[in-house]
């Protein structure tokens, strides 16, 4: 009896409440209702009897906002609808074209980048190979190729063979001793000696030019043999 005081009125309230409330619509019911409304509208179109009322507006709302009613059917314009559809299609096509173009451009850019990378790689390889163009040295007032420099010249010949498009200028230089003009002639003879040796290694001599700077472009300016030895040189420069 102690619990009956609360349970009995609660049971009564719940029973009455559940009877009084309408059960909520199920999803199936909502779908059916919507389909029915749509079918009604579609049928009206087919019959050529357009609806005069907006089924999605309550009467009260339609009265308060007449503009919502008017736009429902009166504004229907087939030409405009066709044009809009055409415009939309055209816009879609343009977008598609644009996308295609973009894709093509991206592809081209990627190819260009790849080509550039390949070129850079090639240039780097060429540059690395061009490091074979080492400076050779000569004895005082001499233009004979030294024994130690033969390997360097072989390296230059290998480079020229590996890169048949490469052209090289051979520069002859001298130390500060002796007259300006005689040293210009001596530098020319040193460049010619290097050219002749490279020719014996099988490189086409037409790919070389020779030039002499005599004693006009020293790499070292002190008056001692260590310095003079550096200045008596043959340099190889890519053209």
């Amino acid at each position: 009896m102690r619990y009956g005081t609360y349970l009995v009125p609660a049971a009564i309230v719940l029973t009455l409440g559940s009877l009084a409330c309408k059960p909520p619509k199920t999803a199936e019911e909502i779908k059916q209702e919507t389909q029915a409304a749509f079918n009604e509208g579609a049928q009206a179109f087919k019959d050529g009897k357009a609806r005069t009322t907006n089924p999605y507006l309550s009467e009260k709302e339609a009265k308060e906002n007449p503009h919502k009613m008017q736009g429902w059917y009166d504004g229907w314009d087939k030409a405009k609808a066709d044009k809009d559809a055409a415009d939309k299609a055209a816009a879609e096509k343009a977008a598609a074209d644009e996308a295609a173009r973009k894709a093509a451009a991206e592809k081209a850019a990627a190819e260009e980048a790849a080509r550039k990378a390949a070129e850079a790689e090639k240039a780097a390889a060429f540059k690395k190979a061009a490091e074979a163009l080492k400076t050779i040295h000569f004895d005082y007032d001499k233009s004979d190729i030294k024994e130690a420099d033969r390997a360097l010249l072989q390296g230059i010949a290998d480079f020229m063979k590996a890169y048949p498009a490469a052209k090289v200028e051979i520069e002859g230089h001298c130390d500060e001793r002796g007259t300006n003009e005689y040293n210009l002639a001596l530098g020319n003879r040193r460049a010619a000696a290097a050219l002749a040796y490279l020719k014996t290694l099988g490189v086409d001599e037409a790919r070389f030019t020779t030039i002499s700077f005599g004693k006009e472009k020293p790499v070292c300016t002190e008056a001692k043999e260590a310095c003079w030895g550096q200045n008596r040189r043959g340099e190889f420069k890519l053209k």
Partner: protein
Amino acid sequence: MPRFLVRTFLCTLATLILQAQQTEVVLSASSSAKLVLGMAPPKVSGLDEAQVAAEFTAVVRRDLDETGVFAVLQERLPSDTAPAKAWKEAGAQWLLTVRLTRATTGDLQLEASALDTAAEKAVFTKPYKADRLVPLRRLAHALADDLVARLTGERGVASSRVVFVREMAPGVKELFQIDRDGANLIQLTRHGSLTLAPSVAPDGRLAYVTYKGGAPEIWGQRRRDGAHEKLYPLSGAGGMVSTPIWSPDGRRLAFVQGDRRGNSDIMILDLEAGRARRLTDGNGINTEPSWNPNGTQIAFTSDREGGPQVFLMQDDGSNLRRLTGEGQYNASPAWSPNGAMIAYVSRFEGKFDLFIYKLGEGKAYQITTGVSTSESPAWSPDERRLVFTSNRFGSAQIFTTDLSGRQVVRMTELPGCQSPKWTRGR
């Protein structure tokens, strides 16, 4: 008292330093007999006295000192009472009096006269006029040259100039010109490249080599004061060209062309016809051509017999003969303006010195001595001195020497100079 001693010591030190600076220029004095020329202070009107002293009197004095034929005596003697006698007692053989006037228009007027103090008669009188653009030192040079002409029969070289090569930056050399007394430095080329081997025709036209196009080319002037233009090769590659030298008539250029086999040959370019002809035979190095004064022979350096030696030949390549005998390295011949001597450089004890070969005697004389190297001799127009480069103060600078080698004078203090050429033509 100690303060006085310190001051005296400092004064003495300063005097010594000043003297050291003065004697640095003139390394040794020539001792040959000279005419003593008394120089009275100039009478000036319309000009600033200090300016005249600096730009006229001092310039005349230096010009005359460097001729080697005058000794200048400057004293403030009373000029109005028996001037000649007073100067004679002071030791002057000639007395030079000068009156300088600047007119209101700015024109300069110079009246110079020289008096023989013994015979008391005029030996030289000459008026000069110059417009206001002519600097005073130009007048001073002209006066000095005329005085030398009066005494020796040949004009002096105070008005002459030296063209030379100067290094601007590593690998960049340009041509410059300077007055014979070291003033008035002017840059002649602005190629921004290696520019070498100037030669000056008698009328002042330049020829030189420049690397501005990569390979060396001969550039120069076809007309007096004309624009610098390429003279050789006119088209295509000319090979390793160097050392253009004007013939004495200014119509031909001797130059050197190196080939790809290492030979260098003397060529002659006829400027009007535009044709170049080879004189030597493609046998080794032939370079540094130098014309004799009438343009019929060429002295040059060749290593056809081993080391570089000086050879002579006709201007068609015939009659080849060796000139220098002694030494392992004889090069850079320069034929004297009168044709009797050839200056050259020779390696001597590990450095290079100037020598003169006297053609009449068939003997060579050493001019410069010392521990430094002397190179690139070129004759003064009056054949009294040689201009050359030397590294005696470190970097290569331009010096002149008399033919005894005893009076060596530094012409410029510019470092990095080479290939001087002395000319009256510019």
